[in-house]
């Protein structure tokens, strides 16, 4: 790959050379035309003055320049050569038929001839065309010479100017080179030539996105590390209590609590992994058409035993074949499981949790409704934040459930809405998918 500088140098210099040569050719043509006019006039003058032999000889010989060498031949009325300025006795050119200008070829040379009738004979004045051409070419070449001599200087100027014009590019390259994953500040757009402005602005957009992605990843890792401390602290404390237990029955109890805390830590780690998966690697979905009713049935069946233990009445409302979406079944099951998790936890013993599948304004939707305490209006915007735990939640959850729900919903272009349950109590979480035409 040639550098821009080389390309410009070769292109501009080559162009200048071609132009100069073209100008030379044009100049030659013009010069030739003008020379022809001039010499033709001269031939005519010459023919008019040719009358006395002595003067003629002199005149002819005075013209030493072979290019202007003029051949004079005079014919009498019988067609015999009366005079020739050439040294040879035979005529160089044949007698032309008509008076006036013409071109004659003789001895492999082209001649410009002017003929004039006089005293019944013909005065013929001729000049070699090649001489005229040589003259024009000589003048044209001489006038081009300074241009050709200037070419190297022009090349040098092009080289320097192009180099200076490309300086902002190398400055930009240096500026980009100074960026690192730790410091992705935007490249200042001031002082950039207008041609680079779109590049700089696109680059800054990219840097901003990259910085944002990196920052959110860093924040996630920091949050995750922080959040892991609570269950680990609980584990460690419980382990120490188990060690201190004075008798077997208390030790038994302590160990069962230890299991509970271990389960919670495991749950948190799983939720963290899920959260990371939906937040940072949205690729790799296995999207297929599916019926939300199947999903609801599967989700409820999975959690039924859990619901029984908690004393919650869990069920599905709706029918098969109405709410069809394109999506990843496993991901959507994760979404539903998280919603059911929250609903079952908050519904409490004697409560009810419904999973409803329906069309909502033509859009397939799945709604999970519980009869728990609900979420106060002012908290609703925040519950989707990572690690946010509701004020009434009691702190058992990972604080990631709804954040994961939103992550999965986002990969399906679905929206999540929080609302009140039936008769204003409890919570209804609705996940609305785009209407089928939008999927196609």
């Amino acid at each position, binding site marked *: 790959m040639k550098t821009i500088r080389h390309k410009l140098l070769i292109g501009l210099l080559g162009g200048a050379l071609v132009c100069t040569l073209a100008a030379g050719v044009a100049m030659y043509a013009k010069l030739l035309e003008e020379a022809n006019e001039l010499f033709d006039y001269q031939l005519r003058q010459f023919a008019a003055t040719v009358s006395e032999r002595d003067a003629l000889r002199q005149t002819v010989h005075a013209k030493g320049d072979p290019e202007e060498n003029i051949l004079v031949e005079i014919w009498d009325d019988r067609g015999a050569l009366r005079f020739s300025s050439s040294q040879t006795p035979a005529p160089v050119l044949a007698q032309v038929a008509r008076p006036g200008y013409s071109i004659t070829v003789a001895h492999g040379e082209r001649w410009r001839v002017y003929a004039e009738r006089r005293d019944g004979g013909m005065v013929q004045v001729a000049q070699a065309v090649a001489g005229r051409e040589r003259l024009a070419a000589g003048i044209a070449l001489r006038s081009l010479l300074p241009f050709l001599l200037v070419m190297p200087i022009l090349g040098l100027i092009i080289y320097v100017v192009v180099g200076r014009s490309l300086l902002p590019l190398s400055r930009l390259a240096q500026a980009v080179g100074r960026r690192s994953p730790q410091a992705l500040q935007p490249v200042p757009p001031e002082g950039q030539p207008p041609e680079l402005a779109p590049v700089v602005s696109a680059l800054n957009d990219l840097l901003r996105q990259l910085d944002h992605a990196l920052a959110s990843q860093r924040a996630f890792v920091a949050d995750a590390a922080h959040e892991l*401390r609570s269950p680990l602290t*609980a584990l460690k*404390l*419980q382990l*120490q209590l188990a060690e*201190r237990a004075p008798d077997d029955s208390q030790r038994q109890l302590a160990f069962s609590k230890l299991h509970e805390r271990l389960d919670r830590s495991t749950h948190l780690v799983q939720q963290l992994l899920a959260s990371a998966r939906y937040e940072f690697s949205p690729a790799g979905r296995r999207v297929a058409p599916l019926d939300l009713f199947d999903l609801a049935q599967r989700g409820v069946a999975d959690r039924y035993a859990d619901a029984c233990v908690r004393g919650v009445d869990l069920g599905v409302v709706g029918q098969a074949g109405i709410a069809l979406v394109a999506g990843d079944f496993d991901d959507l099951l994760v979404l539903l499981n998280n919603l059911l998790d929250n609903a079952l936890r908050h519904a409490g013993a004697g409560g009810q949790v419904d999973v409803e599948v329906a069309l909502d304004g033509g859009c397939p939707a799945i709604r999970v409704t519980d009869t728990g305490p609900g979420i106060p209006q002012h908290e609703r915007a925040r519950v989707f934040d990572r690690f946010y735990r509701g*004020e009434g939640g009691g*702190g058992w959850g990972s604080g990631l459930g709804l954040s994961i729900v939103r992550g999965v919903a986002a990969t399906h272009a679905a929206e999540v809405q929080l609302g009140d349950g039936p008769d204003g109590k409890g919570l209804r979480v609705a996940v609305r998918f785009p209407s089928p035409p939008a999927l196609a």
Partner: protein
Amino acid sequence: MRLLLIEDDPMIGESIGEGLRAERYAVDWVCDGNSAQLAMAHDVYDLVLLDLGLPKRSGLQVLREYRKQGGAAKVLIMTARDSTAERVEGLDSGADDYLVKPFDLDELFARIRALLRRSAGRVVPNIIHRGVTLNLATHEAFFESTPLHLPAREFALLAVLLDPPGQVISKARLEEKLYGWSERIESNAVDVHVHHLRKKLGADFIRNVRGVGYLVGKDE
């Protein structure tokens, strides 16, 4: 000794509470900033264990408010926030000590003992008074160099009366120091404990100030 545990994580709170009760402290446990503020308004606690990340009102807010109101109990912050700046901020907000999660129960207990000792103005770990020695770390008691077998409440009652000695403490106050909210108290529980202690230490070791409460005299 009665402690207030402010911890929003139910599992951590449960474990710490259990551990503290096993160490014979009376423990009340609250889970959010507002309840913490309400509980701290009662000036019965010898020590407050404070988590910083609380719902409704942050631990530091609770602490600053408490100190502004003139609350004097020792406050031990237990938190997962471990940067130096956060420790400094915690201590400067009025905390007496700072413990980063996850921690050992032993260390927590040792720090609690040290804080309680300092609040009583002692520099030695044992309470020694008129022949009675109470080791607060091991909960062993001695009278005239012979081991004294004291049930948890009697030990705690004696510790309250001796730390420092010479102050008259009302029966209601003693009940508060000995029992958490969740525990049922018989109306004459304190009297019964005092009765048992007198049998072990001599009738005049604990004196009754009629209509006011009990007192262990400074000297013979």
